[in-house]
């Protein structure tokens, strides 16, 4: 599915394209460190619907990518827009795997999660003391296939760390959510999806800063009412 059906495919083989050229093109397109804007990357990764129609429309595949990291940047002082990820987590809690929350700023409130349909028996709360322990725990959780999703709140992870965590998520086919302050928006990151959420009266205004295989978008309005919350 191409995002813009009318645009000509720059990599379509025209007449007279030699086999060598096709081979080079295929190798070029299959490189994992290059994404071509406007084309969906030919990956077989599953996606999980975010629960918000307007967000699904602009994410390739129609949802959060499994086996990759998603960064959610929020205004400082907020615990992070957990409710953005909540519909996907409710769906994942039906699987027989853990949902790990590592170093959350506050304790997630079990009656609230249960009231929205999540199976709280699948939640693992991990509170490491040292930062190195926290990084280790996140990597272990992402890499093992016992966790369907890992949500972590790390202080200012640098790009190298994120790349390592991304590889671990690929290995374990885990949906990773990295919550960080919006000040980190300027930093380079290898996460598959980067999203910034600004709270609004009836929901949030979401900017898609970067998405693998898609274009950045600004000011998507997501409302609580979209997912049936009061």
């Amino acid at each position, binding site marked *: 599915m191409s995002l813009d059906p009318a645009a000509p495919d720059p990599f379509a083989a025209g007449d007279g394209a030699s086999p060598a050229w096709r081979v080079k093109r295929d190798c070029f397109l299959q490189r994992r460190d290059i994404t071509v804007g406007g084309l969906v990357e030919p990956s077989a990764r599953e996606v999980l619907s975010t629960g918000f129609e307007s967000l699904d429309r602009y994410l390739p595949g129609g949802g959060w990518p499994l086996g990759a990291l998603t960064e959610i940047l929020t205004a400082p002082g907020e615990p992070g827009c957990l409710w953005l990820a909540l519909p996907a987590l409710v769906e994942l809690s039906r699987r027989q*795997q853990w949902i790990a929350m590592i170093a959350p700023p506050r*304790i*997630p409130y079990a009656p609230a999660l249960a009231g929205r349909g999540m*199976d709280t028996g699948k939640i693992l709360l*991990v509170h490491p003391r040292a930062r190195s322990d926290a990084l280790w725990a996140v990597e272990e959780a992402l890499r093992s296939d016992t966790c369907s999703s890992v949500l972590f709140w790390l202080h200012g992870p640098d790009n190298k760390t994120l790349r390592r965590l991304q590889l671990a998520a690929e290995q374990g086919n885990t949906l990773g959510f990295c919550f960080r302050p919006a000040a980190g928006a300027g930093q380079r990151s290898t996460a598959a999806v980067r999203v910034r959420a600004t709270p609004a009266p009836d929901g949030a205004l979401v900017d898609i800063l970067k998405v693998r295989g898609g274009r950045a978008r600004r000011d998507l309005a997501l409302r609580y009412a979209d997912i049936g919350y*009061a």
Partner: protein
Amino acid sequence: MSIAPAHTLPAQAPRADPPPTRQRLWLALHFHGLPLCAATDPDGGERAPAPDTPVAVLETVARTQRVIAVNAAAVRAGIGNGMKPGEARGVCPVIRLTDRDRPREQAILAALADALEEFSAEVAVAGESALVMEAGRSLKLFGGVRALLQRLEERLRHAPDYHCALAPTAGAAALCARGGLSVCIEDMRQLRSRLGDLPVTCLDIEPRGRDLLGAMGIATLRDLLRLPRRGLARRLGPAFVRQLDELLGERPHFPVPHRFTRRFTACLHLDEETADSSIIMQAANRLLGRLERRLRHCDSAVNALRWTLEATHPRERLVLDMPLATPAWRADGLAFLLRLRLESVTLAAPVRRLSLASDVFASRSRRQQHGIPGLARAAGQDHEFIDRLRARLGERAVRGICALPEHRPEHAWSACEPGTAAAMPQAGPARPLWLLPAPSPLFALDGQPRLDGALRLYGDTERIRCGWWDGRGVFRDYRQALTRRGQRLWVFHEPPAGRWYLHGVY
């Protein structure tokens, strides 16, 4: 039991019984090297001498101390059994003389009896340094006597020196083993003839009886069996005659079975003091290998382990307790957990001795016996993952949460063991996703709460009033509020005009 005529005990069996189709066959092991092994402590340690040191074990016999066991180096130096200490030291000045350590011998014997659980379910202790086990019923499993003996030899490679014998009765097998006769007697009728040449000192008689037989000139078993029964019973006691009958199979004998210990304890002395975790892990792997073998033979698993690392200078010990979320029996998984634990622990002093103790063995849960890894994963959440996290981060760092049926918001949830089944979801107004540990007071102006600007209250009021019966009553009116920047909060005040508090963030 046949009562033979009083004046003679015939040399051949009194009646010809047809041999039973599946005869019991007992295997006896007599560890004549047990006193030496106990004294020299083969696992290393403070008492272990170098292998070339001559060592002799002393025992007080008839009010004098005499040497009862010597190692190869001492034999080369010219020391023999029966010497007095002074004599021994005269022959070899560098000899190490130690007293016999009977408690340790019994402990080693009990450990060997536990090890024999691999071969038989009926193991008994016969005397102070012999074990008997019933081998006839599982001969087909092991593939014959020769294969069984080979496996036994391999298993008891590090055990003290022993003699092994097989016979239809336990007493006869023990007798042969004690006499150093390594035979396999399968036919009950041959017992008398084959046991005939054994000296009577191998029998279990008290010293008075032994002296009596010596005075009578009875040296071998054959001579003994020729004596009249009534006379023997009168001189040596009816118990002795009963023992002879049991030995020859004319009276059934059921040795008291050894109760296998359902715990594992072992310790290992390291060759050198070290704080290097890789060397400690090697020693730990050996201990875990033994544990795994033990667990395999009794089809069990462990629920908790305790590792003790001891140092000598200064005298310190570090105890690591590792409770497990699910029963485990695989050495590699347990070794991994220990390695994680060691990484987070700093050793204050170099470690000299490593011990492992387990709790009582538990049965393996059937669910985990899937051989296919994918299936095991799908069958249930992986508690090994929690064990791994806890090994590095600590017990309390990994928890689950559950909702409780309770109106007061701060008591409506609790931390619990991960995987606990959830209570039913409550219908009602939506609760905030993050609850503060304690309500935090808000600054109010004109009765309206403020946090970073005026808060806009909206939605219905929810009144919660309960808990008066246990002293933690609440009487609160909850509202939803919106900050200036658009964040949703859950605030309450105590009616009619109490302070405003912030309790949750959406």
